[in-house]
């Protein structure tokens, strides 16, 4: 069965928050809710398809202008509410991710979707830097600018261990066209070259994930799965609390030491040369 973008996102949002309707003032494509998680409360955010959107290029679950600004607005409001509180009282943000991509549209470019995407990424990163634990739960697709806008600034990334989970810079067909290969060649290369792979197991090898979570029923959340996901989120949040507020955990880990050896060597050399310059 071909993965239908956004269905899982909506299901998991509902399972974890008990609600599935957008807040007033938000587009129908953005779900935001404060719900209990572990012993506290968290802000859950999700982007879902809205076939009725007045922006035609976001109707299949892409992240567009309204989505980016609505996300940023909810995050900024939470930051303001928790301003001045000690870190342990800053409420976590859980981004549930199942997005096709960013919006590929002329209206969006005319208005400046690059700034909208930046504004959402800014809000997520600001929350993280101010001590809010930010955890992304990847339940389906996490693509390209859609992922940069919604979720890639999180302290910790949790993904379902499932063949319908795909994290990538570009869809197969478009990536094949641009790199002048057949889709078959592209997929074959992915098995040899992990960063090019569309398989979440290869993604996990890069050292970017906090946890790859096996779920019995990713399409229709069942009690045992919901408990397992909640537990994973709680443990990811606890892991944020005793760690850094930047993204260095993504390259300082045993897997990254192997797969991102070249990048880590660059960082080391730059630091040495910086001091002498």
């Amino acid at each position, binding site marked *: 069965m071909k993965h239908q973008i956004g269905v899982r996102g909506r299901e998991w949002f509902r399972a974890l928050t008990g609600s599935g309707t957008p807040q007033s003032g938000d587009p129908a494509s953005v779900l935001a809710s404060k719900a209990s998680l572990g012993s506290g409360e968290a802000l859950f955010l999700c982007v879902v398809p809205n076939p009725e959107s007045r922006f035609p290029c976001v109707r299949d679950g892409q992240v567009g202008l309204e989505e980016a600004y609505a996300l940023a607005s909810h995050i900024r409001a939470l930051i303001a509410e928790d301003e001045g509180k000690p870190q342990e009282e800053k409420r976590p943000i859980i981004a549930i991710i199942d997005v096709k991509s960013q919006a590929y549209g*002329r209206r969006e470019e005319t208005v400046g979707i690059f700034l909208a995407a930046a504004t959402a990424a800014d809000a997520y990163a600001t929350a993280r*830097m101010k001590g809010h634990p930010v955890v992304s739960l990847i339940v389906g697709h996490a693509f390209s600018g859609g992922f*940069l806008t919604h979720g890639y600034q999180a302290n910790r990334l949790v993904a379902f261990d499932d063949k319908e989970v795909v994290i990538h810079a570009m869809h197969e067909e478009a990536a094949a066209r641009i790199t002048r290969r057949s889709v078959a060649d592209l997929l074959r*290369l992915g098995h040899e070259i992990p960063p*090019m792979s569309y398989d979440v197991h290869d993604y996990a090898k890069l050292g970017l994930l906090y946890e790859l979570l096996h779920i019995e029923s990713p399409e229709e959340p069942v009690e045992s799965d919901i408990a397992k996901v909640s537990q994973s989120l709680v443990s990811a949040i606890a892991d944020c609390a005793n760690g850094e507020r930047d993204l260095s955990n993504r390259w300082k880990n045993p897997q990254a030491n192997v797969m991102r050896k070249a990048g880590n060597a660059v960082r080391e050399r730059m630091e040495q040369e910086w001091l002498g310059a």
Partner: protein
Amino acid sequence: MNTEDTIMEFIHRRSFIELDARGRAQSLLDEGSFKELAGPFARMQSPWLPMQGVAPQSDDGCVVLKGKVDGKPAVVISLEGKFQGGSIGEVSGAKICAALDLATRDSVQGTTTPAILLLETGGVRLQEANLGLAAVAEVIASVLSLRPHAPVITIIAGTVGCFGGMSLVAGLSSYVLMTREARLGLNGPEVIEQESGVDEFDSKDRALIWAIDGGEQRVGMGLADALVQDSVEEFATAVRKLLAKGIPAVHRSELVERYRARIAALDVSTQIDPAGLRAQWKQADVEGGVR
């Protein structure tokens, strides 16, 4: 100035766009003040390109110079649009992040070190796909760490433009300088045409592309800060002016409600006329106060 003077000035102008990434970066720093970090002789190149039969480059298309502007520390990070479209891979991404993080560390410790980013890039390098995308997310994080402590200036000068994930970096910068020839957008016209069809965006329509993504339009809409002539001297002056201004009181990417309200007010039942939108937003900036 008469026509003859204007022509002579044009002829004698030193073009910024025609310089390569290294030349552009050097032109912004005080003579003899700079050192290249992890330069080509360090041979820090992409490990992924040779595996795919693509020739790597010994600086991975990213030049980092630490030096001084008017005697004060600065770091310049310059992407070479002629190598793989200025795309971001594991190595070039790590160079950018490391430079920004070190500038942040110095700035926090009292040596304010602004960053100047010369972005000529199509975004993520697809041959390094997920490591490129991860690198862009990390660059975004690093820009946001530095921005409260020292200004981050993005320059988009050449015709490659600034697209893909790196356009978010422009959106997060303290200031953005562009030439008339430069373009800034999330998705390039070819990508939109491929994904959404020629009716959505005709990538052969040059006038339309510049009407939407061009430097004059982006500055006119308030999405970039100043339009600069293609001249080494003009860029040196513009950069110094922004460094003197320092960190802006508010960054454009923090104006959530302002832009959200503007988008809510748009009629999107048909395509939006770029010139009309520009006039409208310019007026709103005048009334609402430029940041």
